[in-house]
């Protein structure tokens, strides 16, 4: 990695750039978990709440309240880590923000507004028990989810602009004729936002279903956990089944717009007609080939350009100093796609059983598979962002501005990195500990049920 950066930035301080990129990656990687949960959990909560209002079965109420405590914790941590990011963009990449801020700031401003509404509605929901009319209270919960969804889509639109810059002209280092609306509606926003939204639903849905499946294995037949899985799985399974279609859209889009990113993700060193799809494999940067990969002939050409004989541009079509770190992008891509298919398989099984009205919550293997799948969606989300963000390197604005050229002049980013790693590690441990205690409290409280 260091050698890679050195090649891109001769004369620069490699450690500073690497530290800054790592700090940004860790901050985003941390925030995104909380953002996904904060975006999807309110919908699960509202579904359970709806069942409580319709059936008057107290288990639904317990479930809604237990989930709402989780929402509060995840929202708070997501809010502080998001606040941090708005500062960090400037702390690490001031020259990027100085030029890009006015151009891609429009989705950010609307995201701020959506986040504000989310905080307001969350306040109303959490403190609205026995204060607001029942259905109005329920509506505030749905509005939390809708504003969270909007804010997620808007932030991804801003990121899409970094991949598909539009809405300005750029000559001799000067940006002019800027059009913030065109920048927001860049070519990447839709495919990225769709893929991210489905990923959030799949990751959170399987995370929640998996957690309750593990608890159900400990307390067989427990109504609260059964109900929790019944609410979470339809969301998770539907998203996981749609995700391969969205992934196909994304791949075709990237093949057109950022062929280099696709070449890195597939570790395709040579431009090829009838290119095979590689599964797994270890890219060898010296020999420029991939070892131990399973090759599915012609499939990459078909997936990228809808024709088995189509030419797919390889890494050799681009100057080497513009290559992203190929092995990292390739491995991340494999992990994301692999997990995507595992979750889609689980989702398909669920819908098959549910549609035929067969019981599935008493099958040990299914519950065990669900609990094992709990972290998978989040791992796929992280891997997917590595493909998007590392795959865009060495550019911060694709084709326009290099990441190295936007780095802050503030020296000693390594210390800043250490400081942030410590803070995030502490927060992550605290949240994990807190969730463990939530579950312990829930379990002791639930002994009242049979």
């Amino acid at each position, binding site marked *: 990695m260091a050698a890679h950066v050195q090649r891109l930035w001769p004369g620069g301080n490699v450690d500073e750039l690497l530290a800054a990129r790592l700090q940004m990656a860790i901050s985003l990687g941390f925030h995104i978990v909380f953002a996904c949960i904060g975006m999807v959990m309110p919908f699960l909560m509202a579904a359970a709440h709806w069942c409580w209002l319709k059936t008057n079965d107290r288990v639904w109420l317990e479930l809604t309240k237990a989930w709402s*405590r989780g929402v*509060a*914790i995840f*929202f*708070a*941590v997501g*809010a*502080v*880590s*998001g*606040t*941090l990011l*708005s*500062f960090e*963009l*400037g*702390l690490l990449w*001031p*020259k990027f*923000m*100085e*030029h890009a*801020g*006015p*151009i891609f*700031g*429009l989705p*950010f*401003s*609307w995201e*701020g*507004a959506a986040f*504000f*509404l989310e*905080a*307001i*509605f*969350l*306040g*109303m929901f*959490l*403190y*609205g028990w026995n*204060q*607001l009319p029942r259905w109005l209270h329920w509506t505030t919960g749905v509005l939390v989810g809708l504003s969270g969804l909007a804010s997620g889509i808007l932030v991804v639109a801003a990121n899409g602009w970094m991949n598909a810059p539009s809405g300005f002209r750029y000559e001799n280092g000067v940006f002019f004729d*800027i*059009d*913030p609306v065109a920048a927001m509606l860049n070519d990447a926003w839709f495919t990225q936002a769709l893929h991210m939204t489905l990923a959030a639903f799949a990751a959170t849905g399987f995370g929640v279903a998996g957690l309750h499946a593990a608890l159900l294995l400990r307390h067989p037949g427990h109504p609260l956990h059964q109900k929790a899985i019944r609410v979470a799985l339809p969301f998770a399974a539907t998203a996981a089944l749609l995700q391969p279609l969205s992934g196909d859209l994304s791949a075709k889009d990237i093949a057109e717009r950022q062929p280099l990113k696709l070449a890195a993700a597939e570790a395709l060193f040579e431009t090829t007609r009838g290119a095979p799809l590689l599964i797994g494999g270890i890219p060898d940067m010296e020999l420029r080939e991939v070892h131990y990969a399973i090759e599915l002939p012609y499939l990459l050409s078909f997936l990228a350009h809808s024709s088995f004989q189509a030419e797919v541009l390889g890494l050799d079509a681009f100057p080497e100093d513009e290559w992203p770190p190929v092995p990292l992008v390739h491995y991340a891509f494999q992990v994301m796609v692999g997990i995507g298919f595992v979750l889609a398989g689980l989702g398909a099984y669920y819908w098959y059983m549910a549609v035929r009205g067969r019981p599935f919550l008493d099958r040990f293997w299914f519950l065990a598979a669900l609990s094992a799948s709990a972290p998978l969606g989040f791992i796929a989300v992280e891997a997917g962002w590595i493909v998007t963000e590392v795959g865009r390197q060495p550019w911060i604005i694709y084709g326009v501005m290099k990441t190295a050229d936007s780095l*802050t*002049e*503030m*020296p000693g980013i390594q210390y*800043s990195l250490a*400081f942030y790693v410590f*803070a995030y590690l502490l*927060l992550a441990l*605290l949240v994990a500990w*807190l969730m463990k*205690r939530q579950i312990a*409290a829930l379990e002791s409280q639930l002994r009242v049920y049979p």
Partner: protein
Amino acid sequence: MEHGIVVFFLGLSLILYVTLGGADFGAGILELTAKRSVARRLRDLTYHAIGPIWEANHVWIILVIVILFVGFPRAYAEISTSLHIPLSLLLLGIIIRGAAFTFRHYDAIKDDSQHWYDALFRGASAITPFFLGVCAGAVLLGEMRTDGTFPERFLSPWLNPFCFLIGAFLTALCAMLAAAFILGEVSRRDIMRHIKQRAFAWSLATVVLGGVVLLAGAQPKVALTDRFLQHPVSLLCFAGATVLLFVLWWAVYSERGVFARIAAAGISGAILLGWFAAQYPVLIHFKDGSHLTLDNAFAPPAAIDTLAWTLVGASLLIVPALGALFWIFKRVAHRPAP
């Protein structure tokens, strides 16, 4: 016109962050400086007073940041480069405080870990407004520069008595705001005595530190005081804050919660507005005497126009929602406080 709208929202967001977010920080400072038995009571009151709106109160700083980087990108870049260190400390405070506030309420098991959350919450509540003040001091002091050695560029703009003084002033102001905001929630006599005493003490500290700021700001290279005393709006704000101070003292003495809140919020708003007027249109004073101003640090017109109409459009959504939140919970929160 769009220019004016953006400047208006920048100022408004900063005032609301210092006033509403500041009162939240102040609540932690009040706990930090109270005896253990009193602090426990204050903690319940804090929660009662700010619980539903605490997230919303802290979104204002995000608005400030977004308006800066969309509307005044050079100012945002200069501030986040030169003030990297105090901004990082400010962020540390924001993270710890936000997380600890939620943890201490939502931890399902209430045991010794609460002491840790309390300690984190209180400590972070004190450092956040302090470093916010330090950054504000650096922007107006005129030690910022775009070149130079590490200490010249990244330390001396903020690591100096003047900026620390502004930090202390803002910290005292936040504690005063919190005492005034909480007053209306108190029902127990002993806690009421404590809060009244703290409201007087912190408002005095604010006045004294404010006076020292004006003295320190009189030195020629800062020239804050001259500008402050020459600008009619600043003078008007100064007079207004003075009158409101007496209103605050009266309201605290006679235990009128609503008036105490209005007076304290008014004082904080007047101080900031007075500062804006004295500083207008300068955003950053540089060491070489040049300035980044609201007129020369501007983003291109297309960005300003969309930002302005976004802010107006978003307000149409946010203001009614926020109004409803305040109205619902200030109305129903008048159950007897613990």
